[in-house]
């Protein structure tokens, strides 16, 4: 297949599946809480609807940065699609993309001029401490598999079995990271409802739709990375089943846990990281 068509196809698949999974997550959360909930395609419909909604840009926004930062989020997750499903590149690039995601959260909040956005911007910096687990996961994977290349990690797993069983605590740390990126998560302090919609508060209309496209791609990519890196070579149906199971698990946790305050959220993630790192090193030594 032509490289460009391969990239386009993967980006469209990531967007559509990511949107549907977000819708599924809301549906499951609603059922757990005893509500009928929105249809599964609601997130996808919302994304498209925002494009034709009336849009205006706040007077207090730092133009053109206010618009450019939304494009930045899309750029990094298109890059993640290229690094992941298209080329099977390095996990270090995924880490870099994730770090830039934090910068986008920070700058989207600060560029809008809204106090809610600014609070979210401060929280984005604060929660950067919780990125320790991701870096630890990469190091543990490298120590076990001897590589950070996604294709090589998949090859390693086809010979030695899934890494999920060899380094379960690293998988748990990555799962906590996935959890922190989901809407309504106990760790989602940058988008907590106590600060309205956080850094997205002043990004409405088409810019909100644009951000939602990138977030759907991001969700798909995080699940794809988890399944690829910890469960090895999977068929397309296995990927889909795995993504649905992970989304359902996240929905269950989100529906039954409160939103933590920033201090507790960061401390809890750092505690998970500590347990994960020490435990994984001990497991590697045994």
């Amino acid at each position: 297949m032509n490289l460009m068509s391969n990239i386009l196809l993967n980006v469209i698949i990531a967007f559509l599946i990511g949107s549907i999974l977000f819708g599924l997550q809301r549906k499951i959360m609603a059922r757990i809480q005893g509500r009928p909930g929105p249809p599964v395609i609601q997130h996808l419909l919302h994304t498209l609807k925002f494009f034709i909604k009336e849009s205006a840009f706040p007077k207090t926004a730092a133009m053109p940065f206010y618009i450019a930062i939304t494009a930045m989020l899309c750029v990094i997750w298109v890059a993640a699609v290229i690094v992941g499903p298209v080329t099977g590149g390095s996990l270090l690039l995924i880490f870099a993309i994730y770090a830039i995601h934090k910068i986008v959260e920070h700058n989207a909040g600060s560029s809008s001029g809204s106090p809610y956005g600014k609070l979210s911007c401060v929280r984005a910096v604060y929660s950067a401490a919780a990125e320790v687990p991701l870096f630890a996961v990469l190091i543990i994977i490298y120590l076990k598999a001897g590589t950070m290349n996604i294709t090589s990690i998949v090859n390693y797993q086809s010979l030695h079995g899934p890494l999920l069983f060899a380094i379960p605590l690293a998988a748990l740390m990555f799962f906590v990271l996935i959890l922190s990126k989901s809407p309504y998560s106990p760790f989602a302090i940058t988008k907590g409802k106590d600060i309205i919609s956080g850094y997205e508060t002043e990004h409405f209309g088409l810019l909100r739709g644009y951000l939602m496209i990138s977030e759907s791609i991001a969700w798909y990519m995080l699940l794809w990375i988890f399944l690829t890196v910890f469960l090895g070579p999977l068929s397309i149906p296995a990927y889909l089943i795995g993504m649905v199971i992970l989304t359902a698990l996240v929905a269950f946790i989100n529906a039954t846990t409160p939103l933590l305050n920033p201090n507790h959220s960061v401390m809890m993630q750092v505690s998970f990281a500590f347990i994960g790192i020490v435990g994984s090193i001990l497991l590697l030594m045994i």
Partner: protein
Amino acid sequence: MDKLKTISWLLLIISLLSIGYALIFNPANWIVYGISLVAIPVSILSFGLIVMAKGRKEDEEDKRREPFIGY
């Protein structure tokens, strides 16, 4: 047509042309990566800026008269 719409149309046409170029002529990989990183996000954003609804001219005065003037 206002300035934003004109720029958006230009960006949309350029980004779609570059995607078409990469699809048809199959250039070197690094060029395709560059085109997809720039052209895909720009095409979505410019499309959004073109199709977004704008407030009615008659309502503009009411919006300006709001007591809330920002932070």
